[in-house]
């Protein structure tokens, strides 16, 4: 039976009453549009009517950003771990270093901050939700939450502990509030016992949260 036939049969079944209402799957259109949705749709229609964007431009832009994942950031970190000269170039200019690995991370300047035994770094944007999408993909929901944004600046060690990350009191915890034109990536410390791993294997242990600083990189055996 073709897809169309199946639809027709289904429609036929619904033409007669059989005594009970069908539950309706909830849909986004069930609720009235919010002010922001109306304004966004109006803006898109105006841009389109004025010929400033073509049909499909918006969805291809969204597709472009949705295609970004933390895998690029992980690849960059793994290269830093295996190539000290590359790590130095990352320290000077992340955007240029990423281009060496054929990554397009956009033009917003990204700054790498490197964890050491004496310094653990963690990222936030208290004013909005600035995030290095080009290297890490879309930010996780919690990163944009008011709870994370307000608490990680005033009680970072408590928040880190909730992520399962314990940092010694001897180690400085430094919070970076990304409030303006710069974006950040944390270069985590390479875990002990990973000397034998290839660069590709190393990239697999670099999680998104390691590069935000809410986690530390762990070896494969842990």
């Amino acid at each position: 039976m073709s897809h169309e036939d199946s639809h027709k049969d289904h429609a036929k079944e619904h033409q007669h009453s059989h005594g009970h209402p069908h539950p309706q799957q909830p849909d986004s259109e069930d609720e009235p549009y919010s002010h922001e949705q109306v304004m966004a749709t109006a803006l898109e229609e105006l841009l389109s009517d004025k010929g400033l964007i073509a049909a499909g431009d918006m969805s291809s832009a969204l597709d472009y950003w949705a295609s970004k994942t933390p895998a690029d950031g992980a690849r960059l970190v793994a290269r830093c771990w295996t190539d000290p000269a590359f790590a130095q170039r990352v320290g000077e200019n992340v955007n240029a270093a990423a281009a060496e690995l054929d990554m397009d991370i956009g033009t917003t300047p990204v700054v790498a901050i490197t964890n050491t035994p004496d310094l653990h770094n963690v990222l936030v944007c208290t004013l909005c939700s600035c995030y290095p999408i080009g290297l890490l993909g879309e930010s996780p929901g919690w990163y944009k939450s008011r709870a994370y944004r307000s608490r990680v600046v005033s009680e970072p060690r408590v928040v880190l502990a909730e992520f399962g990350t314990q940092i010694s009191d001897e180690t400085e915890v430094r919070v970076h509030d990304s409030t303006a034109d710069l974006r950040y990536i944390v270069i985590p410390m390479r875990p002990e016992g990973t000397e034998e791993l290839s660069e590709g294997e190393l990239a697999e242990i670099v999680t998104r949260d390691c590069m935000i600083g809410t986690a530390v990189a762990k070896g494969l055996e842990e």
Partner: protein
Amino acid sequence: MSRFKKGDTVHVRTDYPQGHARAPYFTRGHQGHIEQITGPYPNAEELAYGRPGAQEPLYRVRFRQQALWPSYQGSPHDTLVADLYEHWLNPGDRS
């Protein structure tokens, strides 16, 4: 040309202007040190209203957490770095 150099003590203006202010509340009125000088970038507080935005140095300013939060429970070593446009900063007390 930037008004401050790396290591300078700076004081964040105690000011509460209306609008798209880019200095987090919890830094205002506090002293920190210039960690890094970046930019210049057009002032985002102006760009937000469709104005061109004057080019300004953007400083990465490091604060001691115990100075920002009187009841801070973490280690005394802990710090916070915020990115602040030059117009938010005045020279701090020598310390």
